[in-house]
């Protein structure tokens, strides 16, 4: 503990050689200009005079050499980066956890009024300072965290690598959860053979810490950035509902949260833009500590990109976090589901599907219908349909897509048709499944039904006395909902097809299999969440373009996927997914889908930095604005001293007589 060490000792190895060269140069005769004078007598006497009057004159020659050597050594020492070890990190493994969540974009990084350095920039600067203070042999890891932890560097003693990793960090629009990061740190510490120290550079809005996996004995330091009394109003809720198609307009619901310290209510402006054009604007009164919801009614003819932005006016100067002052959405009517009915003739199916407003019909209002014998699996036109309803048809092969079977069986390997059974009685059904919710199957009276032996992975939705009556099954990119009964053979008396449950079941099946409900859920997500999008039939590849453009990110599509799930949505804004039919890169996309991701997190909107962290099994950690100084860099002093010695040498040189 204590003492001096150098960070780049290689320069000191050059000292002997350079000193030797200096001495060699010193002994080389200076080439002098010859000047003839009438008598050199007086000059010689003047030299003698100076020598007599300056007892140290003899030493001056050597003094110059000594001063030059001293300046050289000091310069080399400066290049070698000497540091005074103040006794902090020494032989330790430091884990630097840098908060990159949305609240770190607040502009009060220095702890004062907003409008200056961001908290994130401050946190990175403080982490760099710890890296600079690392002594020889000290190691460190950089971990970036928001709601998930990401190890940026392995455990290394390379300061350039650590600095580069810190410089490469960028803030996200995600919420903060420190607990998973500390759990991750505990795993990383298993590789740390030496005494560990954990530094958290954050504003303290880190979520619950009542259960963390970090060993309580590991030193934990909370380096706080941001002001304790920061004020902020943010958009914490957004819902975009399209028109129902019955003449009413779309609705945009916006929730504002004023996370400022207690104070009087304020009136702010809230603007709604559709495709960049101001569609509505209104004043909203917000009260500190409370949420306020307001609804915009939108013309039923309008659709497209929705942007909701807070107009803070004079309050802008006090609003610490601009990142949550805007939110995006998409106002889009539900896309029709293209349904092909393959049947020898079924009044119930034909009429029910035709009445469903979501089912696509041609210009004459007719539903696409084919006879079973006209159904050929390798017909490419089948790929245009989102759902194929097969009535009393069991084809030998199926194209990729979604299928609804009535009294038929998909040709999936392992799915065994055990033949017809009589006297079916429904026992129970899955009320939570999208296809069967709000449906009453108790009135389904079945004289005859098919009996199936399900495979692993198949899911029975309606169970009867002889086995599953309605179930889901899949084979690769083929997905089916099988109803083991014939609608046309139901008894007329009290037939289920006349029950309200029947059209509801059919509508549920269309929306679930056709992907409409999936798209609706996926159009508006949170940055920490997952966008789940309907996978168009035949899509083999997808690319994600982030908000504001930038390089597209490929998204993997497995043949078994029934939907595209997009994660790692770090930035808020509008994303675009492009689907391609060919698995190879290139080509024109077959379909483009946009969706919006927003922060919408009241915890992140509350940006006032926490003075202390309460971590399970530890005393409260008081936040400090700076990490304790471990090593003091001395190269500037060495360089300044070298300059001073050079100046002294220059002064002596100008007073000399001989060289």
């Amino acid at each position, binding site marked *: 503990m204590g003492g001096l060490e150098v960070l780049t000792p290689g320069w000191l190895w050059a000292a002997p050689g350079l000193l030797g060269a200096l001495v060699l140069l010193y002994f080389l005769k200076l080439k002098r200009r010859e000047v003839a004078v009438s008598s050199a*007598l*007086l000059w010689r006497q003047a030299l003698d005079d100076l020598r007599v009057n300056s007892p140290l004159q003899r030493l001056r020659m050597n003094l110059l050499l000594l001063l030059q050597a001293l300046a050289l050594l000091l310069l080399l020492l400066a290049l070698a980066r000497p540091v005074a070890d103040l006794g902090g990190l020494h032989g330790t493994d430091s884990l630097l956890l840098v908060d990159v969540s949305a609240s770190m974009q607040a502009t009060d990084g220095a702890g004062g009024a907003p409008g200056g350095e961001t908290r994130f920039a401050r946190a990175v600067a403080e982490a760099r300072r710890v890296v600079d203070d690392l002594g020889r042999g000290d190691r460190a890891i950089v971990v970036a965290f928001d709601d998930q932890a990401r190890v940026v560097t392995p455990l290394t003693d390379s300061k350039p690598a650590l600095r580069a990793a810190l410089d490469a960090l960028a803030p996200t629009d995600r919420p903060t959860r420190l607990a998973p990061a500390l759990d991750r740190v505990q795993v990383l510490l298993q590789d740390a053979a030496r005494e560990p120290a954990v530094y958290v550079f954050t504003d303290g809005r880190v979520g619950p810490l009542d259960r963390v996996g970090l060993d309580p004995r590991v030193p934990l330091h909370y380096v706080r950035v941001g002001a304790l009394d920061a004020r902020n109003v943010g958009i914490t809720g957004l819902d975009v509902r399209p028109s129902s198609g019955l003449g009413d307009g779309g609705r945009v619901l916006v929730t504002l949260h004023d996370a400022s310290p207690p104070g009087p209510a304020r009136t702010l402006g809230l603007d709604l833009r559709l495709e960049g054009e101001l569609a509505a604007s209104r004043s909203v009164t917000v009260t500190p500590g409370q949420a306020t919801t307001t609804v915009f009614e939108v013309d039923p003819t309008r659709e497209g990109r929705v942007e909701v932005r807070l107009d803070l006016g004079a309050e802008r100067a006090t609003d610490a976090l601009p990142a949550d002052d805007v939110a995006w959405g998409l106002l889009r009517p539900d896309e029709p589901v293209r349904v092909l009915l393959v049947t020898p003739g079924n009044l119930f199916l034909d009429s029910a599907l035709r009445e469903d407003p979501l089912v696509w019909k041609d210009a004459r209002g007719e539903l696409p219908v084919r006879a079973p014998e006209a159904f050929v699996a390798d017909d490419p036109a089948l790929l245009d349909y989102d759902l194929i309803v097969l009535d009393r048809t069991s084809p030998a092969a199926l194209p990729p897509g979604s299928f609804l079977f009535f009294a038929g069986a998909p040709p999936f390997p392992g799915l065994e048709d055990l033949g017809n059974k009589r006297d079916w009685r429904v026992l129970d059904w899955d009320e939570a499944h999208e296809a069967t919710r709000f449906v009453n199957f108790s009135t389904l009276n079945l004289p005859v039904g098919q009996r199936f032996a399900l495979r692993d992975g198949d899911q029975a939705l309606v169970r009867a006395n002889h086995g599953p009556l309605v179930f889901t099954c899949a084979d690769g990119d083929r997905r089916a909902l099988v109803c083991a009964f014939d609608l046309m053979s139901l008894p007329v008396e009290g037939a289920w097809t006349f029950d309200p449950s029947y059209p509801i079941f059919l509508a549920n099946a269309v929306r679930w299999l056709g992907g409409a409900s999936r798209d609706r859920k996926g159009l508006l997500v949170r940055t920490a969440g997952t966008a789940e999008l309907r996978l168009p039939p035949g899509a083999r590849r997808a690319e994600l373009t982030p908000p504001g453009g930038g390089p597209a990110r490929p998204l993997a599509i497995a043949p078994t996927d029934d939907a595209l799930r997009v994660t790692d949505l770090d930035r808020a804004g509008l994303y675009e997914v492009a689907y391609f039919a060919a698995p190879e890169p290139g080509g024109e996309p077959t379909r483009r889908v946009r969706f919006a991701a927003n922060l919408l997190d009241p915890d992140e909107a509350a940006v006032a930095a926490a003075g202390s962290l309460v971590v399970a099994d530890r005393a409260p950690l008081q936040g400090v604005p700076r990490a304790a100084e471990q090593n003091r860099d001395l190269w500037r002093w060495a360089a300044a001293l070298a300059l001073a010695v050079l100046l002294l040498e220059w002064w002596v040189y100008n007073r000399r007589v001989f060289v």
Partner: protein
Amino acid sequence: MSGLPASAGEPVDLAAPGPPAAGTGASAPGSPHELVGTHALEQGPLLDQALLAKIARLDVATRKLLQGRQKGEKKSKKRGRSVEFADHRPYAAGDDLRFLDWSIYARLERLMVKLFLEEEDQHLYLLVDASASMDYGRPNKLRYAQRAVAALGYIGLVNQNRVAVGAFSSTLDRVLRPERGRRNLRKLLRFLEETTPGGATDLGAACRRFALEHPKRGVVVVVSDFLDPRGHEDALRWFLARRMDVVCLQVLAPQELDPPLMGDLKLVDVEDGRETEVTISRPLLQAYKRQLGARLAALREFCHGRGARYLCASTAMPFDRLVVDQLRRLGVVK
């Protein structure tokens, strides 16, 4: 005055910047490379009409009554036959009866002889330093010295002084025998023109030989830079011991009074070829000027202490001012 004593009584101020060198060459005046061997570059007449007009009425002055070889125009310590009464003495057998003072005999009845001051011709010895160190500076020191000797010689000749001239370096190189009368001016000028610089300075040897060859007392003007490492005291004593009226005219170039040198140099002595490596800085320049000042002061004190006269002249000083003003103020001419 620009750093040089206007007369022997003025202090030397070597710290002040010297006058700019009055170079005659095409190159920049004052350049160290152009200061040696400049004698050959200056070819003007030793005496011009304007100067002759100014000095025509001057005469060589002496503080001492000197002994000449012939009856002349200068008062002598000897009692002689001039018209100027000096004293009486008792008559002795053999005295010229024409000098008996009959008025005293009438009053005192004692025979007294009148004594008169003897008037003799005066010797003017001009000794010029022609060593290599004099071939230096702009204007050239030797040329300046030659002009000074020519002017003084002219004054001496026209005033019926016996003028002898010697040129020396390491020894007495050439001598012009004592002559008198204006008719010898041409011989004097030719002697000076034929004097060329060269050799080391040995002031003592030159003075010793000149003094032995010219035993008659008179006015001795030594024109030199007095930069002899052996000093000047022993040399001048050869003249002082013979009770001669000694005048030391020290001629220095402005580039010696305020050297335009700086930096790392190898100084080469033009007389002995010795090299001295120096790094000339401000402190060294100040030390040089201190040494030069001390050397001038030592010569001046030596002269004043022994009744000799001393004048240090920079070659930057206009020559007519030297003769008409400075030498007259010093009492060398009147």
